[in-house]
C-alpha cells in the first residue's frame, strides 16, 4: 500500500516496529531499475580495473555517492527513500552509508549492529529477482529486540565477519533451516530493516546485486551519543574488512552543486560526527 506522497501508513509503521522490517513492493519502475543496472555495470567494470588484485576482498562493493553512478546517488534525495526513513527515524536522520554490492556467494546470519542505543535503518534494493533458494534476504522477525536478539547471540548463531556459526555446527542445521521470513522480490521492490535485525541470504550466486541506503537516527541521549562515537570507530575497521573501493563521500557529492538544503544538513552532521574523515581516509 504505497501512499501518494510515499509516506508510510500507521499499519506499516507498526509492522516495522513489531517485526523490525517493512517490505514495499514496486517502489521503482522497470525503467528506473534498468538505469540503475546500467550504472552498476559500468562502475563494476571500472572497479575491477581499479582494485588491487592482491587484496583479498569479501565481495565487490563501492559507495553510491560517486560521479560514475549519478542516478543511484540521487536516490538518497528521492522521497521514496528518505521520506519513509525520516518517518521511522525522525526528520533529522542522516544517510551515513550507501553502497552498491556485487556479492559472489551467500551471506550468513548476522545483525549489522548489536548496539541497543543505535537506531539505524537499511533500505535494500535487489537489482535481480530473488527467491528463498536464489539469494533472497531472510530476516528473523522481531529479532531486533531483546530477548530474542541476544538469545541468538547466546546460542551462537552469529557468523559476522566470516565466523563459523557454533549453533549451526553443533546442531547440524543449515543456515536455511533457521526460521525466518524470506523476502522473495522483484527488481523495484524495497525492504527497510532495523540494523539490529538478524538477517542472511542463501542460494548466493556470482554478481548478486544490491544497492543499500542506510540512515542513522540523530543521537539525542548520552547513551545514544556514546554509541554513535563507538559506531564511528567500528566504521573505520569495517571499511578495511569489507574492502570497499573508493570514498564513501566523494567530493563531487560533498560539493552539493544544487545546494540541496537536506544534503547540506547531512554533510554538516557527517563532518561534525567525524564520518567524513573516518570513511574518506
Amino acid at each position, binding site marked *: 500500500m504505497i501512499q501518494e506522497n510515499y509516506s508510510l*501508513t500507521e499499519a506499516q509503521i*507498526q509492522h516495522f516496529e513489531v517485526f523490525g522490517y517493512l517490505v514495499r513492493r514496486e517502489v521503482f519502475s522497470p525503467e528506473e531499475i534498468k538505469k540503475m543496472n546500467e550504472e552498476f555495470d559500468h562502475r563494476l567494470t571500472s572497479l575491477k580495473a581499479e582494485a588491487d588484485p592482491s587484496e583479498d576482498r569479501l565481495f565487490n562493493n563501492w559507495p553510491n555517492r560517486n560521479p560514475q553512478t549519478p542516478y543511484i546517488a540521487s536516490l538518497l534525495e528521492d522521497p521514496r527513500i528518505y521520506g519513509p526513513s525520516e518517518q521511522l527515524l525522525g526528520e533529522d536522520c542522516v544517510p551515513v552509508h550507501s553502497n552498491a554490492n556485487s556479492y559472489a556467494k551467500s551471506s550468513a546470519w548476522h545483525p549489522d549492529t548489536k548496539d541497543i542505543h543505535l537506531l539505524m535503518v537499511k533500505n535494500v534494493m535487489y537489482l535481480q529477482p530473488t527467491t528463498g533458494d536464489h539469494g533472497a534476504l531472510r530476516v*528473523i*522477525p522481531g529479532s531486533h529486540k531483546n530477548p530474542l536478539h541476544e538469545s541468538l547471540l547466546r546460542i551462537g548463531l552469529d557468523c559476522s565477519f566470516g565466523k563459523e556459526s557454533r549453533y549451526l555446527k553443533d*546442531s547440524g542445521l543449515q543456515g536455511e533451516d533457521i526460521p525466518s521470513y524470506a523476502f522473495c522480490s522483484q527488481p523495484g521492490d524495497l525492504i527497510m530493516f532495523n540494523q539490529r535485525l538478524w538477517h542472511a541470504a542463501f542460494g548466493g550466486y556470482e554478481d548478486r546485486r544490491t544497492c543499500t541506503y542506510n540512515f542513522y537516527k540523530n543521537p539525542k541521549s548520552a547513551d545514544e551519543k556514546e554509541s554513535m562515537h563507538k559506531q564511528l570507530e567500528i566504521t573505520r575497521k569495517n571499511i578495511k574488512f569489507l574492502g570497499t573501493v573508493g570514498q564513501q563521500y566523494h567530493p563531487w557529492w560533498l560539493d552539493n552543486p544544487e545546494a540541496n538544503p537536506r544534503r547540506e544538513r547531512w554533510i554538516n552532521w557527517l563532518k561534525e560526527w567525524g564520518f567524513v574523515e573516518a570513511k574518506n581516509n
Partner: protein
Amino acid sequence: MIQENHSLTEEQVQHFETFGFLVRRQMFNTEEIGRINEEFENHFASIKEGFEKNSERHESRNWPNWSNLIPNTPYMANLLEDPRICVPTEQLQGEDTVPVYSNANSFRHNTNWHPDMRHRHIRGLKNLVYLQPTTGDHGSLRLIPGSHISPLFDELIRIGLRPTDKNETDFLTESGMRGEDIPAYIFCSQPGDVVTFNMNVWHAAFGGYEDRRNCSFGFYSNPKTAQEEDELRAQVENAKDIRTSLKMDLVDSQYYHEAWLENPEGSEKRARWIKWLDKWGFIKALNN
C-alpha cells in the same frame, strides 16, 4: 537428528526455547500414519452425520474434533505414552508435566493468527502431527518465531493480530495485508513429521481445505508457584467452556473416557497423570 531414546539434543532444546517451537521429521513411519488415519476415518464416519446436523442447527463455523482418549481410537490414545511424544515433552516442561488434551481435528477452513494460551507463567506445549502432506498454500501450520516471549507476544496483541469475536483481525483490515503476509516459519510437512510448540507461540494455517487433519497432544507444566497455580485454575475454568466452544463431538462419551481412566495396563505414568487431572479439576471440567 533423532537420538535413540527420543530425547532432544541440547541444540534442539535451545531451538525450542529461542524460537518457541521445534520440528522433528519422520517420527512416525508410513504404517503408523496409516493406522492413525484408519482410526481417524472410522471414528469420523461414526460422528459425521451428527456433526452436520448439529452444525446446521447452530450455524457453527467449527470443525469436527474429538478426544483421542476413547476406545474407538486405541492406537491414538496410547500415543501420549509413546516416548516420541512424552520424552521430549518431559525434557522441555519437566518430568512432572501432564497431558491435558489429546485431540483429533478435521478442519474445514483456515485458522487465523492466535496463541493457544495467554497465561505467561504456567507453560503449555502442543505436539502436532499432520496426517496429510502440507505446504504453505495447502494447510501448513505457520508460526511466528520467538513470539512466545514478550515484547513480541504482547505487541502482536497490541497491534490487533488476534481475531475479534466476529473473526475479523484489526491489523489485517487496517493494513490491507492477508494472514499469509504476516512473517512466519511455514511448517511444510509430510505425514509422520511432528512440530512441538510452546502454546504462547502465535500460529495460523492458510490454504485450508475440507478434512484437513491433525492430531494434537497438549501438555501443561506442573505448577510450582502461587502465580502458576492461579493461572492453572484459570485454565480449568477455560476448559469448562471447551466442549461448548469447540462443539466437541464426544458421542455421549466423555473427554477422558472411562476406558482410559481405568488404566488397564497399570501405567505408572498414566496413573500419575490421572491423579493430577483429578486433583486440579480437569476431569470434572471436561467430562461434565
